[in-house]
């Protein structure tokens, strides 16, 4: 498949620090998330943010099998990625859908050339400003449990190295979903997928509560929730639940965020 050809125009990790070093940091960060109080949505959110950072793409979204025959968007780096993922689900075409259906890596698709492959999706993605799309499967042995979508504004291809990194991250996502126990396969997977989907909803509800209380946008509310969760070492979903039942309010969130500056890890790109 020509889509997999490596390409010297792919952008390397020339900025800031050597990519290997940053890669190692990200793996440590993700491993850290796995051993501490584990929050699957926070974990997948971090993973999508790091994936665009590591391979120099512009947006990413992650979908999981809802075990009812559909995919659900669980993490996304920004609104444009979320809307595109939703668009894919509604129109039932696009890289994530194809990747999920076939289990194959759908990388380096030039959206200008994809008008017959995904007529609606290609147009929507280009209108959003993206030129290239990639989708990598979340694999558990023979089963596909979700897909990670990446979008690039510039018309550059990902190298094979980049794709290996992103597939590594997608595999870590699957490991994260099965974390906590010896793999009792389907039982644990089913429990985890359902928990992840509901955790996502709790977080959306908390974003709404917080935005109404503090008079901020839902995006700002999300940043506040995450920062607080990280600073205090609590699971994002538990923080969201505390907000929803009014055990934790804006003042409480701000207080903790102010007291311990500098302890937060670098946040990648703003979501």
């Amino acid at each position, binding site marked *: 498949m020509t889509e997999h050809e490596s390409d010297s125009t792919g952008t390397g990790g020339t900025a800031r620090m050597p990519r290997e070093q940053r890669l190692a940091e990200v793996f440590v960060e993700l491993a850290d998330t796995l051993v501490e109080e584990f929050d699957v949505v926070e974990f997948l959110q971090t993973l999508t943010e790091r994936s665009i950072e590591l391979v120099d793409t512009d947006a990413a979204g992650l979908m999981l099998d809802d075990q009812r025959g*559909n995919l659900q968007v669980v993490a996304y780096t920004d609104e444009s990625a979320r809307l595109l993922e939703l668009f894919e689900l509604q129109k039932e075409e696009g890289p994530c859908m194809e990747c999920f259906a076939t289990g194959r890596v759908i990388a380096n698709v030039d959206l200008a050339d994809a008008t017959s492959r995904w007529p609606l999706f290609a147009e929507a993605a280009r209108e959003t400003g993206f030129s290239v799309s990639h989708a990598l499967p979340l694999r558990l042995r023979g089963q596909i449990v979700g897909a990670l979508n990446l979008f690039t504004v510039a018309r550059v291809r990902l190298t094979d190295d980049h794709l290996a990194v992103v597939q590594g991250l997608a595999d870590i996502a699957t490991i994260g979903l099965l974390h906590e126990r010896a793999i009792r396969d389907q039982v644990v997977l089913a429990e985890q997928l*359902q928990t992840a989907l*509901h955790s996502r909803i709790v977080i959306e509800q908390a974003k709404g509560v917080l935005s109404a209380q503090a008079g901020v946008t839902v995006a700002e509310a999300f940043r506040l929730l995450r920062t607080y969760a990280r600073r205090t070492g609590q699971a994002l979903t538990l923080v969201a639940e505390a907000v929803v039942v009014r055990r934790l309010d804006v003042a409480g969130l701000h207080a903790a965020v102010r007291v311990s500056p500098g302890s937060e890890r670098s946040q990648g790109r703003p979501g």
Partner: protein
Amino acid sequence: MAGTRAAELLAVVLAESADGTDLPSRLLSACAGTLPVSGAGLALMTDKGPAGTVAASDGVALELEELQFSLGEGPCVDASRTGRPVLQPDLAVTAPLRWPAFASGALSAGIRAVFALPLRVGAIRLGVLDLYRDGPGPLGAGELREALDFSDAATLLLLHLQSADRAAGPEWGQISPIDDRAEVHQATGVVSVQADVGLAEALLLLRARAFAEHRPIGELARDVLEGIVDFRRGYEGTEDGRT
């Protein structure tokens, strides 16, 4: 998470009961009849904790529902506390250590597998759907899917049973699936602050208003997020005259 399949399942049950009586029992009978399980039970949860058994498909299911609440332990209790499905394909292996008293009761009642599915919309915890089976073994992928569809239907059912002001909302025959878009859940949070109500009631307010105004709930949710529609007291009517 309630998809269209869940709404279809409810519609079938509703067709058998035009006046909406005893819907939970009918849903459970359909559930136990469709899935490879021997019985099903529906437990109600409120914000304050377990609130009892809503319905059960048979005597054994009822006995095990009651047993879990009187003991305060079991798959259903764990599912509702953690919000996580508890799938136990072989009680004889896993249950005696985890829930000693429940395990002995379940095994002596002839039950070998339990699948407890929490009924929730994010932080809104409504109840638990318990599936009991007299033989061990996991649910297959297709069976799990069907079980989740039934749990979605039960979620919708419990949500609407909780609606204090049924007159303002849709009739039973017009219940729409829960829209899964992020905006709807965010708007639920906003409305709960504006109207000073819990999340469950906030979601019902949103759904009732969308129904009354004949508009998609996703669209109403966006208006709430943008401040065009406000649920605070004294803001009952929207700017453009819709009420």
